[in-house]
């Protein structure tokens, strides 16, 4: 038995599964709520969801990998989404993206080792008037320069460091 099975806290998942007992078409909402709870979809959660829904595990994995919204690896505590839509692109979004990722030691995006941040490119966040822009979690930041973007990220970084000490 792998370690993840022993360390996995199943209580939250059981609560989610119990809300959907006997309801057809529950897989996607269960995956969403599970991801909300755990931050991603751990393998053990996928295994238990499959068992709970009496569905082949490969099918659950298939659904989880089909939708971009689901993540099978741990995600950062803060999700930085840098817009690279047309408007942001022409106003230098690529420079913002590379500044942030190089500062966080993330070549091409991804999740930092300490799980503080996940940095992603997105196609358009629908605020082209604020270009270039990014979102951190649910906050929107617009009219960015590489410098101002980094100051904002550093603010979150400070908060993370403060919490850690």
């Amino acid at each position, binding site marked *: 038995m792998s370690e993840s099975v022993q360390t996995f806290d199943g209580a939250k998942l059981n609560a989610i599964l119990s809300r959907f007992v006997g309801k057809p078409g529950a897989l996607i909402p269960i995956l969403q709520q599970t991801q909300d709870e755990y931050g991603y979809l751990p393998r053990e959660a*996928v295994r238990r969801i499959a068992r709970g829904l009496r569905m082949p*595990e*490969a099918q659950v994995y298939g659904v989880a*990998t089909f939708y971009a919204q689901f993540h099978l690896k741990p995600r950062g505590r803060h999700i930085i989404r840098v817009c690279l839509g047309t408007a942001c692109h022409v106003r230098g979004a690529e420079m913002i993206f590379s500044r942030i990722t190089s500062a966080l030691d993330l070549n091409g995006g991804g999740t930092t080792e300490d799980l503080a941040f996940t940095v992603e490119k997105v196609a358009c966040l629908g605020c082209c008037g604020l270009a270039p822009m990014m979102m951190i979690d649910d906050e929107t930041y617009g009219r960015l320069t590489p410098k101002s973007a980094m100051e904002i990220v550093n603010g979150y970084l400070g908060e993370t460091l403060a919490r850690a000490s």
Partner: protein
Amino acid sequence: MADAIKLNIDGTDVETQPGTTIIDVATEAGIEIPKLCQHRLLSANGTCRMCLVEVEGARTLLTACTTPVQPGMKVSTRSEQVLRARRSVLEFLLAEHSLDCLVCERSGDCRLQDYAYEYGADGRQIAGKHYERGVEEPGEVEADNPFFVRDMSKCILCGRCVRMCAEVMGYGAVDFASRGAETKVATSFEMPLTESSCVFCGNCVTACPTGALQPKQGARQGRAYEYEKVRTICPYCGVGCSINLHVRDGRIIGSSAVEGPANRGLVCVKGHFGHGWIQDEDRLTRPLVRKDDGELHPTSWDEALDLVAERLRTIKSKHGSDAIGGLASAKCTNEENYLFQRFMRSCVATNNVDHCARLCHASTVAGLATVFGSGAMTNSNWEFESSDVLFITGSNTTETHPVIGAVVERGRRAGAKLIVADPRVTDMAYRADLHLQHHPGSDIALLNAMAHVILAEGLEDKEFIENRTEGFAEVKEKVAEYSPERAAELTGVPAADIIEAARMFARERRGAVLYSMGITQHSKGVDNVKAIANLAMLTGNIGRFATGVNPLRGQNNVQGACDMGCIPSHLPGYQLVSKKELRSKFERAWGSPLRADPGLTMIEMINEAADGGLRALYIMGENPMLADPDITHVKEGLENLDFLVVQDVFLTETAQLADVVLPAASFAEKSGTFTNTERRVQLVRPAVSSPGEAKADWRILCDLAARFGQSWGYEESAEIMSDLSALTPSYGGISYDRLDPVGLQWPCPDADHPGTPILHTETFARGKGLFSPVDHRPPAEVPNGEFPIVLTTGRMLYHFHTGSMTRRAPSLHAHVPTGYVEVNEQDAGHLGIEHGQPVKVISRRGGVVTQAVVTPNIKQGVVFMPFHFAEAAANVLTNTALDPVAKIPELKVCAVRLEPQPWEGARGCCCETSGESDAFEATNEGSD
């Protein structure tokens, strides 16, 4: 039936039923439409686009596999536009396909290759990015299981494997993962198949239209056009699957599934990949005789057979003919079993002839013969996909009869309710709508209580009971004593579940009961069977399509061995030896007097041997040293004999004790017939010649009979069939020329009779069905302070019976190298037993050390051991307590205790995800 639809395909007018697809009606009309994703057993998904056809008036080309026919449709399957479109489809597929046909095993057996050739597509028209299916380079393949290879650079995403695994086998080990250009077929988290739910049946390999899935057996030994395929019948369980043996230069290099009436192209892992034992170097090649030095020495056939004849004659004249017994074989053909009992009855002059049905379905034969008049499965394998409710009890169907397991899964997917009663959470129990996890040995309480509920709620079939049965009043009175509450105490199943099960079973129109050794291998096996028959008659589920009482027979030809009279009380065709007119028919045909008194059963022979009453035993293709209960006692018995002859393909544990060992041909080296669980007599064909001097059992028997002054004069096995069918009414119309390709289901009384798929349709074989009141009684051995745990035994998927075949099949042995005991996780916690740890299992009869598999899937207080493994032999422990009527031993229940043993070497367990197993030493104590 709805009005037929008329349409025109390629200028030909055709007629069909509404709902039929274009591809099906075209196929019926002999017009072939190419297809890569469509498969007759699978739902249509229309992904490959090869079956595009032009329909007059349609905006675009349509996929023939998903388009239902419409009245007046005009379909062109080969118009200019269609051919162009198909060629483009192929170009797109080939753009992402590894084009290494030069070295591909499937070359010559690849639909993609066939169509590429036919349509002139070469994969160079589109500059695609090759090998995107989760592999970096062609040749990077998943090959870590012993059965088949996955090369995803050749996958065309048709989804046949995905659907075969989910829709037919019910496992869903693989599915489509990711999306768009990155879509691939993958297991969960893209782990190797050995870590998924895959059971390695390889039906995906059969279905794969390219080289993405390739069997490992026969690799680099010849491609499809280089070997001959010999169609025969699988030698493992009773399903009777048709298989092809691949023969090149006189050697079997592989095997595959083939369409047959019993299996419809499906097989299990053993039938697909488990035939390597045929050419194992351990095969017996010369007769062996034990000499003065106590060792077995090779000798000539003449010397060996002369010795057998002389010794049997001496013992007969000294101790009487009943001092000699014979065990026939459920592995041998009908013809051979017929001759074996003829030899025992007419040459030796005893009815002491039995075989391993005594250990599996003796209770069925006795029980159903009493209540219905015929002791066989009432319905046929593939009817269960049309049942409305399936009640499976005491059968781990997906492991012991995997292809019937697949039929049940298809039924379940089509909407049938599934009720499973089993102390273990088997795959089938896991899939069930209702799982009744009862105590081993409490079946009658459960079945009576279900009958109680059905009667209390008025759900019985009054008309059927009135017109077709007798004895109902007594059963009504008896089951009144079994309220669900009382049964809940006896079985451990909640009363509410028993009530639910009864309603579920009684309310549906077509209900079938499937059962196996969980019902029969008890000291009350016959009563268990009668309780099942009561339930089926109560609900009128007999004699109709997709219903019935369906004992699943365990061996390829155990039905046939029973049919052929290898039982002490009956001549072929269940004709009683005690009836003079039946006996004299055989006396006339065989030209010798026959005994009227029934002989000894298998367990009685062993007991008599130990007590000195039986002096000689002739065993053809059986291995009681592993198969029988209380092996220590079996060994005592066999060693106490004056003379033991064993005729087998290997020097089995039993043969090692013999005075003379006769080398027999395997199923792959002879012709004959097997009768499967649905009473279907099917042809077995020779593929290769026998090793060394080994001979077909029937030829050995003829040679031996000649030494008793009987010249049988058989040159071909077909002649034996024509003799036996003349004497056996249910086989009366069976001859070899009628058996190709679908066989015949008995009763088949005359040459014009089409065979009988469903028994008891108008009347029961005995006239009326007999209701029989039966009472719960505890197993012969119940847990106590010293032996607090119940041991139940059985089979597992990857091995068969005493392992003499499967443990010599390299792939199966590599996958599961040794035995184990399943222990409930709570019990393991209390006893301090860890997963994979050695434990000693001890009963009143002995002890064995094996490794623990700690699992939630077995009831607390119960442990399970498979009986295939000599080094951890479950039957050292089992109890010889017998059913009073059927004389079947109680192999399913005995009391044991567990003692954890110190770890030896590296920790780890080899049973679930084998292949990465540590060598595991198990000792067999208490058997000497």
